[in-house]
């Protein structure tokens, strides 16, 4: 269990656990990967000598003497390991991805190289994979009605960038609402969450600046940091000692060869890390930032709407002041059921970004029904639509579901990573064959899950990732938990070696951590 060193900064217990991989399981996982690698080489040999039909891209005859294009490990892995269990990913969905969804049934006659749709539809699959934290992915209700009205008014396409002709009044209204929601002076919204990160970090830092980014930051943050041209230093995941050491070294030694002071130091962290389920140690980072005069960029892609008693994200969860975070970034994809990203902060910063960001200048602005969905869902969460349904049905339900689901999985004996309050629940699988087996067995039991392996995770730490939603009822969670336990027994996934407490006879709902 990780104990925070500066416990006085935290107003509530911060309980995270990342149980260590059992040694036997690690050895067997490596053995499994070894066997797959040997057979991968065998199949590559057969493909090379044309004994077997080659379905992948290959260089042409004339290019065989050039630098090989498909010999690196990534391509080897894709050809020989990923392809064998590829039916667990890219499953086509033919309904709204709410708490239950419909999957298109497909078969593969040639071991996942090609797929055929049989025409059947697998109905009412419990959806444990969509980022639908507050349950706004629905096709009926206030949000859908409002989006429909705005489509009738504005159409769907904007046909321009924000700078030219694409700045609608609905965008202005949405940005003011976002700024009020976050508690910052001003905010700006972009059409795509990934592009928000990768196109705005280059506008904020440049050469001569230092970016301190967490080990497990998302690809969009890494891409943005690399595009900016700043020096990047990486600190260990959520480790404040490592961050402080880097900060001190940066201030003492300055830039690499000239030893001039850095123009600015930007700490880039995420609110919830979706592969680990861990929550950032924000009070300590803000204390460090104030002491060493650095700037903080907080990417709340998964945590906005999902954490905190009022749904305002990590800042609200820890009870801190939003003005302490210099740049608050987030996405509308996860908790608001829309698409796009936003950046919030001081008015000067946002005005600067409006003119200097690549995304604002070149990317098409957000579509009106999507913007309307954001406005309606945000008003529901804030309670401004006149009812308390947002708070009761969604925020409280999500918090209860998260606590219940995590507690039950831990009691069953699975290894679960992450903080007790995070709605992202990674369940460790470790062995490569179990990745494919878990995905398939869960679909057989009508539950759709997301399984993740290399390269999104370290090679032996493959996992299944559940995303809890406020739209899940207790019965759905119980069905899912029963199926997970059954599959866990079938596949022998209950690796945890912690002492199991006696299961409590009745789980009382007063144990909700949502405090008013």
């Amino acid at each position, binding site marked *: 269990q990780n104990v925070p060193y500066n416990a006085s900064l935290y107003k509530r217990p911060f309980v995270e656990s990342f149980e260590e991989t059992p040694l036997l399981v690690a050895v067997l996982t490596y*053995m499994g990967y070894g066997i797959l690698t040997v057979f991968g080489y065998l199949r590559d040999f057969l493909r090379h000598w044309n004994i077997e039909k080659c379905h992948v891209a290959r260089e042409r005859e004339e290019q065989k003497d050039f630098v090989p294009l498909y010999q690196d490990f990534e391509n080897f892995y894709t050809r020989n390991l990923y392809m064998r269990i590829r039916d667990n990913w890219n499953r086509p969905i033919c309904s709204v991805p709410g708490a239950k969804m419909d999957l298109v049934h497909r078969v593969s006659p040639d071991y996942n190289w090609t797929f055929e749709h049989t025409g059947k539809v697998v109905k009412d699959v419990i959806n444990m994979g969509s980022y639908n934290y507050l349950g706004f992915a629905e096709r009926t209700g206030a949000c859908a009605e409002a989006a429909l009205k705005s489509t009738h008014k504005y159409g769907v396409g904007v046909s321009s960038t924000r700078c030219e002709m694409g700045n609608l009044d609905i965008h202005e209204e949405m940005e003011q609402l976002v700024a009020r929601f976050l508690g910052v002076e001003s905010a700006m919204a972009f059409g795509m969450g990934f592009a928000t990160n990768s196109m705005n970090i280059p506008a904020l830092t440049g050469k001569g600046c230092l970016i301190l980014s967490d080990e497990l930051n998302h690809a969009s943050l890494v891409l943005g940091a690399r595009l900016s041209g700043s020096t990047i230093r990486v600190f260990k995941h959520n480790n404040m000692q490592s961050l402080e050491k880097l900060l001190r070294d940066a201030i003492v030694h300055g830039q690499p060869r000239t030893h001039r002071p850095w123009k600015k130091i930007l700490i880039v962290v995420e609110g919830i890390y979706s592969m680990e389920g861990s929550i950032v140690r924000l009070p300590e980072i803000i204390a460090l930032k104030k002491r060493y005069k650095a700037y903080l960029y907080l990417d709340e892609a998964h945590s906005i709407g999902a954490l905190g008693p009022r749904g305002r994200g990590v800042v609200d969860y820890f009870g801190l002041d939003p003005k302490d975070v210099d740049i608050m970034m987030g996405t509308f994809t996860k908790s608001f059921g829309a698409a796009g990203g936003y950046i919030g902060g001081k008015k000067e910063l946002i005005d600067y970004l409006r003119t200097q960001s690549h995304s604002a200048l070149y990317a098409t602005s957000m579509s009106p029904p999507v913007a309307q969905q954001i406005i309606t869902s945000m008003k529901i969460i804030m309670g401004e639509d006149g009812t308390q349904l947002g708070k009761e049905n969604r925020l409280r339900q999500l918090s209860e579901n998260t606590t219940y689901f995590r507690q039950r999985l831990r009691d069953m004996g699975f290894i679960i990573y992450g903080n007790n309050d995070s709605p992202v629940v990674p369940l460790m699988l470790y*062995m490569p064959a179990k990745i494919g087996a878990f995905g398939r067995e869960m679909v057989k039991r009508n539950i759709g899950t997301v399984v993740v392996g290399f390269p999104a995770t370290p090679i032996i730490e493959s996992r299944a990732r559940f995303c809890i939603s406020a739209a899940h009822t207790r019965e759905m969670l119980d069905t899912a938990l029963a199926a997970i336990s059954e599959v866990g027994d079938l596949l022998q996934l209950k690796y945890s070696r912690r002492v199991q407490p006696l299961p409590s006879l009745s789980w009382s709902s007063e144990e909700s951590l949502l405090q008013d």
Partner: protein
Amino acid sequence: MALGDCWKQLSWFYYQYLLVTALYMLEPWERTVFNSLLISVAAMAVYTGYVFMPQHIMAILHYFEVVQ
């Protein structure tokens, strides 16, 4: 009845073996290749043990001075 349960248990063990060695992901002919290699190596080890067992036992007894 008991044979059916025994068959179920054995088939569960085979499933675990497939999962742990990652043979679950391989095509049937690859499984046959791996299984035949494994069985032939194990059979050769058992046969070698069987052939050399008398010599090994005589050496042990000689060491412990049970027999001259």
